[in-house]
Protein backbone atom coordinates (compact mmCIF):
# COMPACT_ATOMS: atom_id res chain seq x y z
CA UNK A 1 0.00 0.00 0.00
CA UNK A 2 1.31 3.41 -0.95
CA UNK A 3 2.44 5.73 1.82
CA UNK A 4 2.40 8.04 3.65
CA UNK A 5 -0.44 5.93 5.04
CA UNK A 6 -1.78 8.46 7.57
CA UNK A 7 -2.12 11.15 4.90
CA UNK A 8 -4.27 8.86 2.73
CA UNK A 9 -6.48 8.08 5.75
CA UNK A 10 -5.41 4.45 5.95
CA UNK A 11 -5.91 4.68 9.72
CA UNK A 12 -7.30 7.19 12.22
CA UNK A 13 -5.96 9.49 14.92
CA UNK A 14 -6.19 6.88 17.70
CA UNK A 15 -4.10 4.40 15.72
CA UNK A 16 -1.57 7.15 14.95
CA UNK A 17 -0.93 7.56 18.69
CA UNK A 18 -0.18 3.83 19.03
CA UNK A 19 2.23 4.18 16.11
CA UNK A 20 3.82 7.15 17.94
CA UNK A 21 4.43 4.94 20.95
CA UNK A 22 5.84 2.09 18.83
CA UNK A 23 8.25 4.19 16.74
CA UNK A 24 9.25 6.10 19.89
CA UNK A 25 10.23 2.82 21.57
CA UNK A 26 12.32 1.81 18.54
CA UNK A 27 13.87 5.30 18.40
CA UNK A 28 14.84 5.26 22.11
CA UNK A 29 16.20 1.71 21.87
CA UNK A 30 18.47 2.53 18.93
CA UNK A 31 19.65 5.83 20.48
CA UNK A 32 20.79 3.93 23.57
CA UNK A 33 22.49 1.21 21.53
CA UNK A 34 24.33 3.95 19.60
CA UNK A 35 25.83 5.13 22.91
CA UNK A 36 23.81 8.36 23.02
CA UNK A 37 22.77 7.99 26.67
CA UNK A 38 26.09 9.44 27.87
CA UNK A 39 27.03 13.11 27.33
CA UNK A 40 30.69 12.17 26.82
CA UNK A 41 29.83 10.04 23.78
CA UNK A 42 27.82 12.98 22.42
CA UNK A 43 30.41 15.73 22.93
CA UNK A 44 33.59 13.81 22.07
CA UNK A 45 32.96 14.64 18.42
CA UNK A 46 33.76 18.30 19.17
CA UNK A 47 37.19 17.25 20.50
CA UNK A 48 37.81 14.77 17.64
CA UNK A 49 38.03 11.87 20.11
CA UNK A 50 35.11 9.81 18.88
CA UNK A 51 33.13 10.77 15.79
CA UNK A 52 30.15 8.46 16.43
CA UNK A 53 27.64 11.34 16.44
CA UNK A 54 28.57 12.20 12.86
CA UNK A 55 28.73 8.54 11.82
CA UNK A 56 25.34 7.64 13.30
CA UNK A 57 23.48 10.78 12.25
CA UNK A 58 24.80 10.95 8.70
CA UNK A 59 24.26 7.23 8.02
CA UNK A 60 20.72 7.43 9.48
CA UNK A 61 19.88 10.45 7.37
CA UNK A 62 21.24 8.90 4.19
CA UNK A 63 19.42 5.61 4.85
CA UNK A 64 16.06 7.33 5.25
CA UNK A 65 16.70 9.73 2.36
CA UNK A 66 17.63 6.98 -0.10
CA UNK A 67 14.88 4.74 1.31
CA UNK A 68 12.17 7.32 0.61
CA UNK A 69 13.42 7.83 -2.95
CA UNK A 70 13.54 4.08 -3.65
CA UNK A 71 10.05 3.63 -2.16
CA UNK A 72 8.76 6.40 -4.42
CA UNK A 73 10.40 4.78 -7.49
CA UNK A 74 8.61 1.49 -6.87
CA UNK A 75 5.32 3.25 -6.17
CA UNK A 76 5.18 2.64 -2.45
CA UNK A 77 5.55 6.27 -1.38
CA UNK A 78 3.96 9.42 -2.78
CA UNK A 79 6.76 11.96 -2.47
CA UNK A 80 4.60 14.79 -3.87
CA UNK A 81 2.21 14.40 -0.94
CA UNK A 82 5.15 15.00 1.39
CA UNK A 83 6.16 18.13 -0.54
CA UNK A 84 2.62 19.50 -0.65
CA UNK A 85 1.40 18.91 2.86
CA UNK A 86 3.77 17.54 5.48
CA UNK A 87 7.32 18.72 4.80
CA UNK A 88 8.79 21.01 7.48
CA UNK A 89 8.54 24.69 6.56
CA UNK A 90 11.65 26.83 6.37
CA UNK A 91 12.03 30.08 8.32
CA UNK A 92 15.59 30.92 7.36
CA UNK A 93 16.85 33.48 9.89
CA UNK A 94 15.11 32.16 13.00
CA UNK A 95 16.40 28.68 12.16
CA UNK A 96 19.93 29.99 11.77
CA UNK A 97 19.77 31.82 15.12
CA UNK A 98 18.10 28.75 16.67
CA UNK A 99 20.98 26.66 15.31
CA UNK A 100 23.57 28.89 16.98
CA UNK A 101 21.77 28.73 20.35
CA UNK A 102 21.14 25.00 20.02
CA UNK A 103 24.79 24.32 19.09
CA UNK A 104 25.96 26.23 22.17
CA UNK A 105 23.44 24.36 24.33
CA UNK A 106 24.63 21.05 22.86
CA UNK A 107 28.35 21.46 23.64
CA UNK A 108 27.78 23.24 26.98
CA UNK A 109 24.89 21.07 28.20
CA UNK A 110 26.13 17.82 26.65
CA UNK A 111 22.80 16.59 25.30
CA UNK A 112 20.00 17.34 22.90
CA UNK A 113 16.32 16.77 23.77
CA UNK A 114 15.94 13.15 22.56
CA UNK A 115 19.28 11.97 23.92
CA UNK A 116 18.59 13.57 27.33
CA UNK A 117 15.60 11.21 27.65
CA UNK A 118 17.90 8.23 27.01
CA UNK A 119 20.49 9.69 29.41
CA UNK A 120 17.88 9.94 32.16
CA UNK A 121 16.86 6.28 31.88
CA UNK A 122 20.58 5.37 31.85
CA UNK A 123 20.82 6.94 35.33
CA UNK A 124 22.59 10.13 34.33
CA UNK A 125 21.86 13.07 36.66
CA UNK A 126 23.35 15.57 34.21
CA UNK A 127 20.75 14.47 31.60
CA UNK A 128 17.92 15.21 34.03
CA UNK A 129 19.43 18.61 34.87
CA UNK A 130 19.75 19.38 31.13
CA UNK A 131 16.05 18.54 30.62
CA UNK A 132 15.05 20.80 33.54
CA UNK A 133 17.21 23.56 32.02
CA UNK A 134 15.40 23.11 28.70
CA UNK A 135 12.01 23.48 30.39
CA UNK A 136 13.27 26.70 32.05
CA UNK A 137 14.56 27.86 28.65
CA UNK A 138 11.11 27.40 27.11
CA UNK A 139 9.61 29.50 29.93
CA UNK A 140 12.14 32.22 29.09
CA UNK A 141 11.26 31.97 25.39
CA UNK A 142 7.50 32.18 26.08
CA UNK A 143 7.87 35.04 28.58
CA UNK A 144 9.83 37.11 26.06
CA UNK A 145 7.73 36.01 23.06
CA UNK A 146 6.07 39.41 22.48
CA UNK A 147 9.57 40.87 21.94
CA UNK A 148 10.60 38.32 19.29
CA UNK A 149 7.35 36.99 17.81
CA UNK A 150 7.93 38.98 14.58
CA UNK A 151 11.43 37.55 14.20
CA UNK A 152 10.15 34.02 15.03
CA UNK A 153 7.91 34.03 11.93
CA UNK A 154 10.28 35.99 9.67
CA UNK A 155 11.88 34.95 6.35
CA UNK A 156 9.30 32.21 5.58
CA UNK A 157 10.31 30.20 2.50
CA UNK A 158 7.52 27.63 2.79
CA UNK A 159 8.04 23.92 2.09
CA UNK A 160 11.25 24.06 0.13
CA UNK A 161 13.96 21.47 -0.49
CA UNK A 162 17.62 21.80 -1.41
CA UNK A 163 17.12 20.35 -4.89
CA UNK A 164 14.34 22.85 -5.66
CA UNK A 165 16.54 25.68 -4.36
CA UNK A 166 19.50 24.55 -6.51
CA UNK A 167 17.30 23.75 -9.52
CA UNK A 168 18.50 20.14 -9.89
CA UNK A 169 16.75 16.77 -9.65
CA UNK A 170 15.94 15.10 -6.34
CA UNK A 171 18.13 12.13 -7.25
CA UNK A 172 21.16 14.27 -8.12
CA UNK A 173 20.86 16.16 -4.83
CA UNK A 174 20.59 12.90 -2.91
CA UNK A 175 23.65 11.51 -4.74
CA UNK A 176 25.62 14.66 -3.82
CA UNK A 177 24.62 14.19 -0.16
CA UNK A 178 25.68 10.53 -0.25
CA UNK A 179 29.10 11.56 -1.63
CA UNK A 180 29.34 14.23 1.08
CA UNK A 181 28.52 11.63 3.74
CA UNK A 182 31.18 9.21 2.44
CA UNK A 183 33.76 11.99 2.51
CA UNK A 184 32.68 12.91 6.05
CA UNK A 185 33.07 9.26 7.15
CA UNK A 186 36.60 9.19 5.73
CA UNK A 187 37.49 12.50 7.41
CA UNK A 188 36.00 11.22 10.70
CA UNK A 189 38.60 8.45 10.76
CA UNK A 190 41.42 10.95 10.22
CA UNK A 191 40.00 13.27 12.91
CA UNK A 192 40.12 10.51 15.52
CA UNK A 193 43.82 9.96 14.73
CA UNK A 194 44.42 13.69 15.00
CA UNK A 195 42.63 14.22 18.40
CA UNK A 196 44.28 17.65 18.94
CA UNK A 197 42.88 18.23 22.43
CA UNK A 198 44.46 15.07 23.86
CA UNK A 199 48.08 15.78 22.94
Amino acid sequence: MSGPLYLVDAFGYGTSLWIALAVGILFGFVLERAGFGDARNLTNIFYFRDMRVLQVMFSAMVTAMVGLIVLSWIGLFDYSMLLDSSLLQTYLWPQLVGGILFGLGFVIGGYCPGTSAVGIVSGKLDALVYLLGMIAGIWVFAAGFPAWSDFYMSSPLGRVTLWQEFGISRELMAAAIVVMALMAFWLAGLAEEWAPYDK
Partner: protein
Amino acid sequence: MRELEYARGFWNPYVAGIALGLVLLLTFYLMGTGLGASGAVARTAAVIAHEVAPTAVEQNPYYKEFYKPGGKHPLVNWMVIEVIGVFIGGLTAVLTARRFRPGVGRGPTASVGLRLGMAFGGGIIGGIGTRFAMGCTSGQALSGGATMVVGSWVFMMTVFATAFAAAYFVRREWS
Protein backbone atom coordinates in the same frame (compact mmCIF):
# COMPACT_ATOMS: atom_id res chain seq x y z
CA MET B 1 42.24 6.75 19.02
CA ARG B 2 42.45 6.30 22.79
CA GLU B 3 40.38 3.48 24.27
CA LEU B 4 37.38 5.09 25.99
CA GLU B 5 35.99 2.84 28.72
CA TYR B 6 32.49 4.42 28.67
CA ALA B 7 32.27 4.09 24.87
CA ARG B 8 32.56 0.27 24.89
CA GLY B 9 29.76 -2.21 24.37
CA PHE B 10 27.61 -0.23 21.95
CA TRP B 11 26.70 -1.05 18.38
CA ASN B 12 29.03 -0.13 15.56
CA PRO B 13 28.08 3.51 14.73
CA TYR B 14 27.21 2.68 11.12
CA VAL B 15 24.99 -0.25 12.15
CA ALA B 16 23.25 1.99 14.71
CA GLY B 17 22.91 4.70 12.06
CA ILE B 18 21.31 2.39 9.51
CA ALA B 19 18.93 1.04 12.19
CA LEU B 20 17.99 4.60 13.14
CA GLY B 21 17.50 5.45 9.47
CA LEU B 22 15.13 2.49 9.02
CA VAL B 23 13.07 3.63 12.05
CA LEU B 24 12.91 7.10 10.49
CA LEU B 25 11.96 5.65 7.09
CA LEU B 26 9.18 3.59 8.69
CA THR B 27 7.87 6.72 10.44
CA PHE B 28 7.78 8.67 7.17
CA TYR B 29 6.05 5.77 5.38
CA LEU B 30 3.38 5.51 8.07
CA MET B 31 2.87 9.16 9.07
CA GLY B 32 4.29 11.41 6.34
CA THR B 33 6.33 13.16 9.04
CA GLY B 34 9.53 12.18 10.82
CA LEU B 35 10.63 11.80 14.42
CA GLY B 36 10.85 14.61 16.97
CA ALA B 37 11.56 15.45 20.58
CA SER B 38 11.70 19.15 21.49
CA GLY B 39 8.00 19.73 20.80
CA ALA B 40 7.19 17.37 23.67
CA VAL B 41 9.48 19.36 26.00
CA ALA B 42 7.75 22.61 24.98
CA ARG B 43 4.33 21.11 25.72
CA THR B 44 5.53 19.80 29.10
CA ALA B 45 6.88 23.28 29.97
CA ALA B 46 3.53 24.81 29.00
CA VAL B 47 1.56 22.33 31.13
CA ILE B 48 3.76 22.95 34.21
CA ALA B 49 3.41 26.73 33.76
CA HIS B 50 -0.35 26.22 33.35
CA GLU B 51 -0.54 24.53 36.77
CA VAL B 52 0.91 27.68 38.35
CA ALA B 53 -0.77 30.42 36.30
CA PRO B 54 -3.55 29.05 34.05
CA THR B 55 -4.91 32.39 32.81
CA ALA B 56 -1.49 33.85 32.01
CA VAL B 57 -0.55 30.72 30.02
CA GLU B 58 -3.81 30.62 28.07
CA GLN B 59 -3.28 34.27 27.12
CA ASN B 60 0.45 34.00 26.41
CA PRO B 61 0.90 34.48 22.65
CA TYR B 62 3.30 31.50 22.44
CA TYR B 63 1.64 28.95 24.76
CA LYS B 64 -1.86 29.62 23.45
CA GLU B 65 -1.22 27.49 20.36
CA PHE B 66 -1.18 24.53 22.80
CA TYR B 67 -4.38 25.73 24.54
CA LYS B 68 -6.84 26.30 21.74
CA PRO B 69 -10.45 26.61 22.95
CA GLY B 70 -12.16 23.21 22.66
CA GLY B 71 -8.82 21.58 21.76
CA LYS B 72 -7.29 18.45 23.24
CA HIS B 73 -5.08 18.52 26.32
CA PRO B 74 -1.57 19.65 25.23
CA LEU B 75 -0.10 16.30 26.23
CA VAL B 76 -2.53 14.32 24.02
CA ASN B 77 -0.23 14.78 21.08
CA TRP B 78 1.63 12.56 18.61
CA MET B 79 5.09 13.76 19.58
CA VAL B 80 4.46 13.63 23.33
CA ILE B 81 3.42 9.96 23.01
CA GLU B 82 6.44 9.29 20.78
CA VAL B 83 8.79 10.73 23.43
CA ILE B 84 7.13 8.57 26.12
CA GLY B 85 8.07 5.71 23.78
CA VAL B 86 11.68 6.98 23.68
CA PHE B 87 11.86 6.71 27.47
CA ILE B 88 10.42 3.17 27.38
CA GLY B 89 12.65 2.04 24.49
CA GLY B 90 15.73 3.63 26.04
CA LEU B 91 15.05 1.98 29.40
CA THR B 92 14.52 -1.40 27.70
CA ALA B 93 17.87 -1.03 25.95
CA VAL B 94 19.62 0.02 29.18
CA LEU B 95 18.19 -2.86 31.20
CA THR B 96 18.76 -5.57 28.58
CA ALA B 97 22.41 -4.44 28.26
CA ARG B 98 22.77 -4.16 32.09
CA ARG B 99 24.00 -0.61 31.59
CA PHE B 100 22.07 1.33 34.26
CA ARG B 101 24.85 3.28 36.01
CA PRO B 102 23.77 6.25 38.14
CA GLY B 103 26.23 9.11 37.80
CA VAL B 104 27.28 12.28 36.04
CA GLY B 105 28.97 12.14 32.61
CA ARG B 106 31.89 14.60 32.64
CA GLY B 107 35.53 15.00 31.69
CA PRO B 108 38.16 13.39 33.95
CA THR B 109 39.15 16.68 35.65
CA ALA B 110 35.74 18.42 35.72
CA SER B 111 33.87 18.64 39.04
CA VAL B 112 30.29 17.41 39.45
CA GLY B 113 29.20 20.95 40.39
CA LEU B 114 30.71 22.45 37.23
CA ARG B 115 29.15 19.76 35.04
CA LEU B 116 25.65 20.08 36.53
CA GLY B 117 25.78 23.88 36.33
CA MET B 118 26.80 23.66 32.67
CA ALA B 119 24.08 21.06 32.01
CA PHE B 120 21.44 23.44 33.38
CA GLY B 121 22.80 26.51 31.55
CA GLY B 122 23.22 24.54 28.32
CA GLY B 123 19.66 23.27 28.72
CA ILE B 124 18.31 26.82 28.97
CA ILE B 125 20.20 27.99 25.86
CA GLY B 126 19.38 24.82 23.92
CA GLY B 127 15.71 25.00 24.94
CA ILE B 128 15.42 28.56 23.63
CA GLY B 129 17.24 27.43 20.46
CA THR B 130 14.70 24.67 19.77
CA ARG B 131 11.87 27.19 19.78
CA PHE B 132 13.48 29.57 17.28
CA ALA B 133 14.50 26.62 15.09
CA MET B 134 11.09 24.89 15.53
CA GLY B 135 12.83 21.61 16.25
CA CYS B 136 16.03 19.95 17.36
CA THR B 137 18.44 17.24 16.30
CA SER B 138 15.55 14.79 15.78
CA GLY B 139 12.89 16.90 14.09
CA GLN B 140 15.06 19.28 12.12
CA ALA B 141 18.50 17.73 11.60
CA LEU B 142 17.49 14.07 11.18
CA SER B 143 13.94 14.23 9.77
CA GLY B 144 14.29 17.51 7.86
CA GLY B 145 17.78 16.49 6.75
CA ALA B 146 16.55 13.20 5.26
CA THR B 147 13.88 15.04 3.26
CA MET B 148 16.44 17.68 2.17
CA VAL B 149 14.58 20.63 3.72
CA VAL B 150 16.49 23.92 3.27
CA GLY B 151 15.86 25.24 6.81
CA SER B 152 16.82 21.91 8.39
CA TRP B 153 20.18 21.86 6.58
CA VAL B 154 20.84 25.48 7.58
CA PHE B 155 20.00 24.53 11.18
CA MET B 156 22.18 21.40 11.19
CA MET B 157 25.23 23.12 9.67
CA THR B 158 24.89 26.04 12.12
CA VAL B 159 24.53 23.70 15.11
CA PHE B 160 27.73 21.79 14.34
CA ALA B 161 29.76 24.84 13.25
CA THR B 162 28.82 26.64 16.48
CA ALA B 163 29.49 23.64 18.70
CA PHE B 164 32.93 22.95 17.14
CA ALA B 165 33.85 26.64 17.55
CA ALA B 166 32.59 26.83 21.15
CA ALA B 167 34.14 23.50 22.21
CA TYR B 168 37.52 25.10 22.88
CA PHE B 169 36.01 27.37 25.53
CA VAL B 170 34.34 24.57 27.49
CA ARG B 171 37.16 22.00 27.08
CA ARG B 172 37.64 21.83 30.87
CA GLU B 173 34.16 20.37 31.18
CA TRP B 174 34.98 17.48 28.85
CA SER B 175 38.76 16.96 29.16
